[in-house]
């Protein structure tokens, strides 16, 4: 199995609290891996360690075999690590075309161009249109982002990340807050994400986790608790107790 993203004994402490406790984890090349765990399990901290938002206190992060533990967010992004956010992090004043166009031009190294307007960049337009189409944003491509329906904003959140042509994509609760009417559109686009992109999904929505993922890791109290195929995880009595049981009782 070739590995896209790997952590070895990754550790993070906030004072006396161990938020990530020597987690070793592997995301397979082209994998669809879900990370689940009860609230406070340290999922967000783990993501922040992977992307470089937070520095770790120990252990390593390897991206396609390269040690990126000491690299900045932006350096990891340039090496093919993309992410979306649990709460939309979009450019409110820009349109989808501009947001995606910017991400594509940055990736192609044209971001420092201070002379030639994006409106003349016919070379990026096909890619921008393809992304708009893939994420069903064609109709609203020239609308200000702040005024898009929430579901469309969620789609743009993923589209902007994919525009950076990531090898590994971290999706942080992509379905969070999406109204029922717009949900199917989101699920369809998630299912249709390019197969060569390795994806780590953090999600509370168990329906989405079990339809999307081919492998699941359970995090409890910052510790790697269990891992397996969806069927194995679902059958694991310990997991049912600490995590899935919670939902059944609710």
């Amino acid at each position: 199995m070739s590995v896209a993203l790997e952590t070895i004994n990754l550790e993070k402490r906030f004072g006396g609290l161990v938020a990530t406790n020597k987690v070793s984890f592997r995301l397979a090349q082209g994998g669809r891996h879900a990370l689940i765990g009860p609230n406070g399990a340290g999922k967000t901290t783990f993501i922040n360690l992977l992307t470089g938002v937070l520095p770790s206190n120990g252990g390593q992060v390897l991206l396609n075999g390269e040690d990126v533990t000491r690299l900045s967010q932006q350096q990891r992004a340039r090496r093919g690590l993309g992410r979306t956010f649990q709460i939309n992090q979009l450019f409110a004043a820009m349109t989808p075309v501009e947001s995606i166009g910017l991400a594509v031009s940055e990736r192609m190294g044209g971001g420092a161009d201070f002379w030639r307007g994006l409106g003349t960049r016919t070379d990026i337009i096909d890619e921008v249109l393809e992304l708009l189409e893939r994420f069903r944003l064609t109709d609203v491509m020239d609308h200000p982002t702040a005024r898009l329906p929430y579901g469309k904003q969620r789609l743009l959140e993923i589209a902007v990340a994919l525009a950076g042509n990531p090898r590994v994509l971290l999706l942080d609760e992509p379905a969070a807050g999406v109204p029922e009417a717009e949900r199917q559109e989101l699920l369809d686009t998630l299912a249709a994400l390019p197969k060569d992109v390795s994806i780590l999904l953090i999600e509370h929505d168990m329906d989405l986790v079990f339809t999307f993922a081919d492998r699941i890791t359970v995090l409890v109290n910052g510790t790697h608790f269990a891992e397996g195929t969806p069927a194995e995880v679902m059958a694991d009595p310990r997991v049912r107790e600490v995590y899935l049981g919670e939902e059944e009782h609710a």
Partner: protein
Amino acid sequence: MPTDTLTQPPTAVAPTTQGLHERALRNLGRTGRWRPAEFVFWALAAATFFFLPDQHLLLGEIAILGLFALSLDLILGYAGIVSLGHGVFFGVGAYVAGLISIHMTGEPITGLLLGGVAAAILGLATAPLLLLRASDLTRLMVTLGIAMLFYEAANKAAWLTGGADGLQGIWIDPIFGRFDFDLMGTTSYAYALVVTFLLFLVARRIVTSPFGLSLAAIRDNPMRANTIGIPVGKRLVAIYTISALYAGIAGALLAQTTMFVSLDVLAFHRSADVLLVLVLGGVGYLYGGLIGAIVFKLLQDTLSTLTPQYWMFWLGLILVVIVLIGRERITGAPATLWNRVRGMGK
């Protein structure tokens, strides 16, 4: 034939793709397109040169202040960097242009460019200080502190700057060896207006470029800008340096057109005034600095004639009103009123 079009889907599809291409490109180029109001603005600016010959001194001051405020807009309006010490670049540009005329050459373009370059070097050197801790409060204090340092340094270094007496003996040669600087300020105004216009054109290009769009992205959401691979720090240093260059050129213009430089160019009120001017005109659309400069200078001119001692009071009041009520509501008031009047008729 209707049946033909039905059997040939490619011809039906092609125009749609073409249409989408155009729509996307049009949207990507939207900020770069010239609006009619912009042509009117610059046509009026050019017209003032011919139709207000006895106001050239005032108009020249407006053009220089406008350029200075535009330089602040580049960092504040486009990159979200606040500054209370932008006057330092203006002052350094003015001193360098003055010193060049005394010690090297009276040729105006040389002094103008070197004044700008000196300010740009200072901008490049100090920009990293603003990135260490990217909070507005630290930035305000760091910029204010640097401006104070330079004011005192210029005061102490009397051997170079003339200290409190100012730089004596500046003489600027005719522009291109042909246009003498006259007492009516006609050449000065033409010079300042042309330089401001050319730099405006360049700034307009910069802010509508992919680089400019990346600045807007950083201003909107620095965290996301980072994760899509935008080198946030480098971009901010770049625009800060460009902004310093612009401010330095504005300072050099003042030194050359007045043929005098004193400590006043580095005084705190320069930094405060330019911020006030920009807020008066509005941030983030390049014209704010220019319009603000017109409003500020006209208010200053009118109010100081009416109440020579209390004009700052009225200026302060107007500023408070504009900031509290919001510019949109003031400029949109006629339309709102019109809608209300029409509504009553129904």
